[in-house]
């Protein structure tokens, strides 16, 4: 299967997917760690894909989204953004809205705590 088909399968089969360096339990880059940390803290169920484990996926995901950096977050098959965008959306509450709109369950209190801590 081509990298593109693997990517499409993954983001179709899972509501929330994070392409990252390392795994959600053991991130290997500060940017990946930050996004995985937010999702973990908010109690969001997500699939993690370690791009360091597969060079085809590592390049393939960049071509797929026309986005040159990792991490990349996908919700319901749509590319949402990288670390900076996810951070901004977390703090503004837009990420909560996106999850709500897409029926993705998350811990609203935890999200509020992140915002309080960064206010």
């Amino acid at each position, binding site marked *: 299967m081509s990298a593109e088909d693997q990517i499409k399968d993954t983001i179709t089969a899972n509501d929330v997917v994070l392409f990252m360096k390392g795994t959600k339990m053991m991130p290997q880059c*500060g*940017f990946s760690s930050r996004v995985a940390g937010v999702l973990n803290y908010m109690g969001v169920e997500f699939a993690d894909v370690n791009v360091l484990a597969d060079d085809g996926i*590592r*390049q393939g995901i*960049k071509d797929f989204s*026309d*986005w*040159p*950096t990792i991490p990349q977050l996908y919700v319901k098959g749509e*590319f*949402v*953004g*990288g*670390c*900076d*965008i996810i951070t*901004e959306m977390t703090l503004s509450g837009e990420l909560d809205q996106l999850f709500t709109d897409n029926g993705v369950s998350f811990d609203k209190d935890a999200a509020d705590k992140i915002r309080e801590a960064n206010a």
Partner: protein
Amino acid sequence: MPITAREIEDMIRESFPDAQITVEGDDGVHFAAQVVDASFSGMNRVQQQRAVYAALKGKMDGSAGELHALALTTKAPG
């Protein structure tokens, strides 16, 4: 050779001549850039940041890229 904040600013400036651009970071590896440009109005953040990445012409690309760590903030003025 490590890239400098000034070089990053110049590259962005080439594509966004009228933008308000701030690039911080002096360790040659980690940078933070803010780009405020009128052309961003009506674009979502993904589109805005794609345009900035395009201006950086592959510098962000993977292990071969000179620029691993660039925190990017983009917005339209006002």
